[in-house]
């Protein structure tokens, strides 16, 4: 038998195994009603965000030829009314979903990536390296994340990249602690000793053994982190630290506040972006919980 | 009156696994009964069923007569009174059955305080007595479980089991995780206590040799049924059921040239209670299976001298083929 047939064989097996795992995962996930609800909501939001260029187009944000009069109440022509510049608020909310979701996703991925690397390496290498790393983690943990994010955003230029960085760099400690604890648990199992006895080095143990066992935790953390990142982005934009050139839900809230919508009672300006933020956060949380409960029992199958 | 009489006990877990499928046992005070079997045979379930300690949702049928009273039909208050004061259990995995944040003395005193309404001082005195009885100095009661060795923790578990002067003690794998020497010490201790206090003892183990040495009678379980029963030595040295023979052969006698470089065992695995073979549940692994074994379940048949076995070859006029248990060298 040639080597190509051999590697093709093992690749085919790996594909088969992954397909079967995916099917099993989906079957288990399907049983969680709340998770399906969250997933459905997310699918809807993603669809809205992706098709936004087709449905509303970027000129919905144009201030110069705004279609309506400023701060019009909801009507047949403008289902959610207009903002202070006369722009269609429904279009703005749809357009703003792109930025909010994107920033939320990127920030969460950054945060979880930093947390996972710190957690796994601290749990694996232990010793002085881990002590130093965990003290840094503790320092970040006790700092109020919002204050730190605000400080970062003020110091750096105001752009989406800054927002992503500010959120990502301040919210990784929780993940790091959780991942480190799980790494320590995994590494005390006999199969780690077996891997070392087979000749596995640090990289092998961390990627082939620790990482698969830590991935469910990371996935669950990611989904939960996205929801808090969306909220954090909204907060930063609301405080005026977001990118002024893009439309986001938090930005809309800030505009609403500045336009005096609160005292004027223009609820259509405040409520829709707020509800959208809450719904996305909720949807991600529901998904995250469902993912956690599907993946966790299978981790510790003790028969 | 018999101390314990079990009649047609059946236990089915939620989900359909039939862990115990009709077991009859009896035990007199001062006597020791060994229940032997491997994983999945139902022996631990049997132990828990005797005191109604199985999880909610488990269906339990039959009768468990402790001094004439049916434990399974008792009211809740009576069951709690019987637990520990009538019969107690030394649990499997005793190392982990102790609460790590309480001192062992307090844990021994716990049932005393719960049952007798004794004063704390009286409980402390009794705890000291119990510790001395199991060979530990009374001061050891102040220690936490992690400060004790495996053998010492097992002794604490035994002291706890004796705390309320039960008439029956059920020991579930009391020496499994222990070294040979500590095991011998614990077994000696159990034997001494049983004879001193005229207790009834049911000892559950997978180690047939240990049971043969310690107990008077031996009941061998497989797939939820008792498939052989009789005087311990006789069942161990000369089992009638093919399963009993293979199980004895699995633990070789040192010095016996027949077992030198000849490990004996059975092909296949012990059956899963939720998926039992038809007919005689042992037939897929039996070296002496006949066609009828696949379709007909066997009941215990008398075979003289107080021995019974559930095998088609027992009690029939045709003697069973006199081969040793299947020699796995020649298989797969």
């Amino acid at each position, binding site marked *: 038998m040639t080597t190509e047939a051999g590697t093709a064989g093992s690749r085919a097996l790996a594909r088969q195994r992954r397909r079967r795992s995916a099917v099993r995962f989906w079957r288990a996930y399907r049983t969680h009603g709340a998770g399906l609800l969250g997933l459905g909501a997310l699918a809807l939001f993603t669809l809205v965000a992706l098709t936004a260029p087709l449905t509303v187009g970027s000129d919905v944000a144009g201030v110069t030829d705004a279609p309506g009069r400023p701060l019009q109440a909801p009507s047949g022509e403008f289902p959610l009314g207009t903002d202070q510049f006369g722009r269609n608020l429904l279009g703005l909310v749809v357009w703003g979903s792109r930025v909010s979701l994107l920033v939320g996703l990127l920030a969460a991925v950054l945060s979880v990536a930093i947390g996972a690397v710190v957690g796994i390496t601290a749990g694996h290498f232990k010793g002085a390296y881990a002590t130093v790393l965990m003290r840094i983690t503790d320092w970040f943990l006790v700092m109020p994340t919002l204050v730190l994010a605000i400080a970062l955003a003020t110091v750096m230029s105001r752009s989406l990249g800054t927002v992503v960085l500010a959120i990502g760099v301040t919210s990784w400690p929780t993940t790091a602690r959780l991942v480190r604890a799980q790494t320590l648990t995994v590494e005390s199992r006999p199969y780690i000793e077996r891997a070392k006895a087979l000749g596995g080095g640090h990289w092998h143990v961390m990627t082939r053994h620790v990482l698969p066992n830590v991935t469910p935790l990371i996935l669950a953390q990611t989904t939960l982190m996205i929801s808090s990142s969306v909220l954090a982005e909204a907060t930063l934009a609301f405080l005026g630290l977001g990118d002024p050139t893009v439309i986001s839900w938090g930005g809309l809230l800030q505009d609403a506040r500045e336009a005096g919508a609160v005292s004027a009672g223009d609820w259509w300006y405040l409520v829709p972006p707020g509800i959208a933020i809450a719904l996305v956060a909720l949807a991600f949380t529901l998904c995250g919980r469902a993912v956690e409960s599907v993946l966790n029992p299978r981790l510790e*199958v003790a028969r | 009156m018999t101390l314990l009489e079990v009649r047609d006990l059946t236990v089915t877990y939620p989900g359909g696994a039939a862990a115990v499928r009709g077991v009859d046992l009896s035990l007199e005070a001062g006597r020791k009964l060994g229940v032997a079997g*491997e994983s999945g045979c139902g022996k631990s379930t049997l132990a828990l069923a005797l005191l109604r300690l199985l999880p909610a949702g488990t269906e339990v049928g039959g009768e468990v007569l402790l001094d004439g009273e049916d434990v399974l039909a008792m009211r809740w208050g009576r069951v709690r009174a019987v637990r520990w004061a009538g019969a107690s259990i030394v649990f499997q995995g005793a190392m982990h059955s102790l609460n790590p944040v309480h001192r062992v003395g307090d844990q021994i005193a716990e049932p005393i305080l719960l049952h007798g309404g004794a004063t704390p001082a009286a409980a402390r005195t009794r705890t000291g007595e119990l510790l001395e009885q199991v060979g530990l100095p009374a001061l050891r009661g102040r220690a936490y479980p992690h400060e004790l060795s495996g053998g010492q923790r097992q002794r604490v578990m035994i002291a706890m089991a004796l705390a309320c002067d039960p008439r029956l003690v059920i020991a579930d794998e009391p020496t499994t995780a222990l070294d040979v020497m500590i095991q011998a010490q614990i077994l000696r201790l159990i034997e001494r206590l049983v004879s001193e206090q005229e207790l009834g003892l049911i000892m559950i183990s997978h180690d047939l040799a240990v049971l043969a040495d310690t107990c008077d009678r031996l009941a061998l379980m497989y797939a939820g049924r008792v498939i052989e029963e009789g005087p311990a030595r006789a069942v161990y040295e000369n089992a009638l059921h093919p399963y009993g023979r293979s*199980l004895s052969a699995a633990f070789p006698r*040192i010095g016996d040239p027949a077992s*030198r470089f000849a490990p004996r065992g059975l092909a296949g695995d012990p059956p899963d209670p939720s998926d039992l073979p038809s007919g005689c549940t042992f037939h897929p692994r039996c070296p002496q299976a006949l066609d009828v074994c696949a379709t007909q379940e066997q009941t215990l048949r008398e075979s003289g001298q107080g021995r019974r076995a559930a095998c088609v070859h027992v009690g029939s006029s045709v003697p069973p083929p006199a081969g040793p248990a299947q020699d796995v060298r020649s298989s797969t």
Partner: protein
Amino acid sequence: MTTPPPLLSARGLHVTFPGRHGSPPARAVDGVELDIGTGEIVALVGESGCGKTTLARSLLGLVPPTSGSVHFAGKPLAYSSRALKAYRKRVQLVLQDPSGSLNPRHTVYDAVAEGLRIHRHGGDEPAAVAEALSRAGLRPPERFFLRYPHELSGGQRQRVVIAGALVLQPELIVADEPVASLDASVRGEILALLLRLRTELGLSALVVTHDLGLAWNVADRVAVMYLGRIVETGTVEQVLTAPRHPYTQALLSVLPEAPGEPVVLTGEPPDPSRIPSGCRFHARCQVLASGEAERAGIAERCRTQDLEVLRGGDETQVACHWARTRVST
């Protein structure tokens, strides 16, 4: 007649673990010489705390010795990561608990192929995995490729672990309590497998166990360990039917079917950070306690004079003052 050199040997091996919070260091392995020849199965028996697990792991290179050395195929072990990795292809480990030894998220295929992947095996991976699984008795091997450990029975899991060790084609396997967690009826098959591997592949083995019956079933030689030293060694027939060290005699006497009166030693094995002076067994020795040592005139020696480390070869040896007096009379 020159005997062939041993495949694996420990020379003057000491492994000491530093004590916690100022307690004295624990001398887990306190001077051991042990040889394992090609195609030989050696049983290392003793109670928990005697150091047999530590000795096995230092023979594998998993625990570096405090002093002394481990030699494989005549050459001392180098502890650089590259040298150790190459060593792993020749000496493999089978652990006690098969459910813990397998990563629950890896399929049987992944578990067996792990060794091949670590060592960048160039050839046909599925074929090598299939062959290892068949050799370990799981047939047809393809049926097991995509199964997970929790779907297998205890005996099957242990076979997967053994297959994972075999796939690298080692010359020696260290098995730490290979059948302790398995059902009695399944033990025989796994032990028979070890014997078959010896016949078919010439595989040597060091079996660490507390079960003397296991040694009787599969081992050629046995070494009895107590508190970090080997106290008696020799062929299984010799040591298990005619033991000379009081500790070995006591261990054998408490087995359920042993003839004569069981000698139940009192107390627990002392811990390795407080090894008694003189003969390390004297505090529990039944010969000393019964006065027989006095009568033989060596009681003082038992209390004060430590015995030397036994040689690793296959001759019958015993580290006991009293046993030696009996030989010379």
